[in-house]
């Protein structure tokens, strides 16, 4: 296939070289368009990945907990009667997941699930001397919980351990209580008081969380909350975070538990991300349309300018198909060359962004990279757009009446 489109290729390249100014302008136009699309795609991908990492870094992808207590009517009303009632909602006391010990291995066996961690959550106060702070108490198994939120990587001080009587607390809480690693604090929940030794301080990425978090062994939490042998929730980490919603729906169908995905727990974030994705897609679409129109208009002009040459080529034996392909190929060449330059330009822009835009700590705000697959697909789409843009001009060129074209 060495001579595949040999004639078309030669003529297309010559035509493009002949219309030097037009060709340069349109290639620059395509490059600019492709650069914008590639840069925006990389930026938004990086931004979203960063946001997700920050959000999902501190929480489970799916949480399983006991169903809420609801008021059950004493008697089913008859089918044709409307009952007007005013019901006081029930108090949601801490409740354990029934049978959680046998549920954990079932969840672990699911291929979509990467990690499972039972936990006991409750509220309480942390006290030291005269200071008393309200806290969110979490009882976990350290190894299991680490696989959900990578707790060990968030330790800022100390050696994370959760032996009996030990605990890990948030950095701000430690400041508020004036404790260092190794100090003791008291935990108070309702009637029970317990004390723990702080083994490590963690930074969960959100100050409010750091100010309230106390992580203790599962057993300690069970007794503090008053649920011996119980678990108020089971945290899941998934292989693919975006599968969370479907998995949650599936689980709540199969088990009598309340199952919540991170998307439901962060619905505002998810809709913001969606809005961002939609806007990006819109911008990309509009830029691509502009690129297509640009290529098309240049080729339309070129067909008019080259009527005579087209007529000669037709007279000496070029088929309509060959003339069509000459112009389609010009579109493809402009698209391919333009998008190659555009991708290079985008790489430069990204480099500039990571070099000059930095956070308050002097580190880059977040990593943005142009994935080769993304670059390739953008370049591919731009080339296809080039061919599409050439369709109308090429058909016009092919349909030219050679006798008339020569007479001009």
């Amino acid at each position, binding site marked *: 296939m060495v001579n*595949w*489109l040999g004639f078309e290729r030669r003529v297309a390249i010559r035509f493009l070289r002949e219309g030097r100014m037009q060709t340069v302008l349109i290639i620059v136009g395509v490059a600019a368009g492709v650069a914008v699309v590639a840069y925006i795609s990389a930026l938004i991908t990086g931004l979203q990945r960063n946001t997700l990492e920050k959000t999902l870094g501190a929480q489970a992808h799916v949480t399983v907990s006991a169903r809420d207590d609801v008021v059950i009517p004493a008697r089913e009303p008859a089918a044709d009667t409307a009952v007007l009632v005013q019901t006081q909602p029930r108090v949601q006391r801490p409740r354990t997941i029934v049978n959680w010990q046998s549920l954990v291995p079932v969840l672990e066996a699911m291929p979509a699930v990467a990690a499972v961690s039972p936990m006991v959550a409750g509220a309480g106060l942390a006290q030291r001397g005269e200071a008393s702070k309200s806290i969110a108490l979490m009882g976990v198994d350290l190894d299991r919980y680490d696989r959900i939120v990578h707790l060990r990587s968030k330790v800022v001080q100390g050696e994370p351990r959760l032996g009996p009587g030990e605990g890990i607390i948030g950095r701000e809480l430690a400041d508020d209580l004036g404790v260092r690693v190794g100090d003791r604090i008291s935990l108070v929940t309702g009637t029970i008081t317990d004390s723990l030794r702080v083994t490590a301080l963690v930074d969960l990425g959100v100050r409010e969380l750091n100010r309230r978090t106390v992580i203790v062994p599962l057993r300690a939490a069970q007794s503090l909350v008053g649920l011996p042998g119980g678990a108020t929730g089971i945290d899941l980490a998934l292989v693919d975070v975006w599968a969370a919603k479907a998995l949650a729906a599936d689980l709540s169908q199969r088990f009598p538990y309340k199952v919540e995905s991170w998307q439901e727990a962060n619905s505002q974030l998810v809709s913001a991300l969606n809005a961002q994705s939609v806007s990006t897609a819109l911008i990309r679409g509009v830029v691509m349309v502009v690129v297509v129109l640009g290529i098309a208009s240049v080729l339309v002009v070129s067909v008019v300018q080259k009527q005579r*040459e087209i007529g000669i080529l037709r007279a*000496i034996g070029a*088929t309509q198909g060959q003339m069509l392909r000459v112009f389609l190929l010009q579109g493809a060449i402009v698209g391919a060359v333009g998008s190659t330059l555009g991708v290079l330009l985008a790489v430069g822009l990204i480099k500039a962004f990571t070099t000059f835009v930095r956070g308050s700590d002097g580190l880059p705000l977040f990593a943005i990279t142009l994935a080769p697959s993304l670059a390739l697909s953008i370049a591919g789409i731009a080339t296809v757009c080039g061919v599409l843009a050439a369709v109308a001009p090429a058909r016009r060129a092919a349909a030219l009446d050679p006798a008339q074209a*020569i007479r001009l």
Partner: protein
Amino acid sequence: MTRLIELVGIHKSYNLGLPNEAEVLHGVSFAIDRGEFVALIGPSGSGKSTLLNIVGLLERLTAGSYRIEGEETSGLDDAGLTLRRRAVLGFVFQFHHLLPAFSALENVTLPALMREGRVTSAQQERARAMLAAVGLGNDMQKRPGELSGGMQQRVAIARALVLEPPLVLADEPTGNLDRASSDEVFVLMRRMHAELNTSFLIVTHDPRLAARCDRVIELVDGHIESDTSTGATG
């Protein structure tokens, strides 16, 4: 014997079915055999160029029959006409009609490139020989814009003949040239005719040139007025 081309009762009308419909050719019949050197003359507006375009398969006839090597062409579609054009015809136009973006040599190799998607070294050699034969051995790499009118027309003749078609159609091939160049070009065509046994159909309004062709067909008002052998030998 099958004639190279044979036209019978050719009619050609423009703007068919419109109020300004005009018939340009009113039943033209003639034939050309292999190796003939024919002039087509006539006053301007007599339909010469139209007839040449019809013979060249660039325009369709309205009524009549046109056979090339015995095969009727009037039913062919565009692709069929193009393939016939490639196989049988070479063109030389009044205004040279070379492709300005291609060198003289590339212009001459275009027909081969168009047929096969590449130019073999044999075809390259053939094109060089052809250009040398028309006296442009030293100007092969020049663009048409760098050549004089006569030289451009010689390139066009080389291009028309490079694949040795049985028939070359020339529309006022010397119409744009001074007398010396036009003599040169004419002599060249006669020489090629003698060497390759190619038939020529030359549209001209130069009686001096017509007199040097073997046969002169005179077209007046869309009719053949006369069709005579001159006995000339160039």
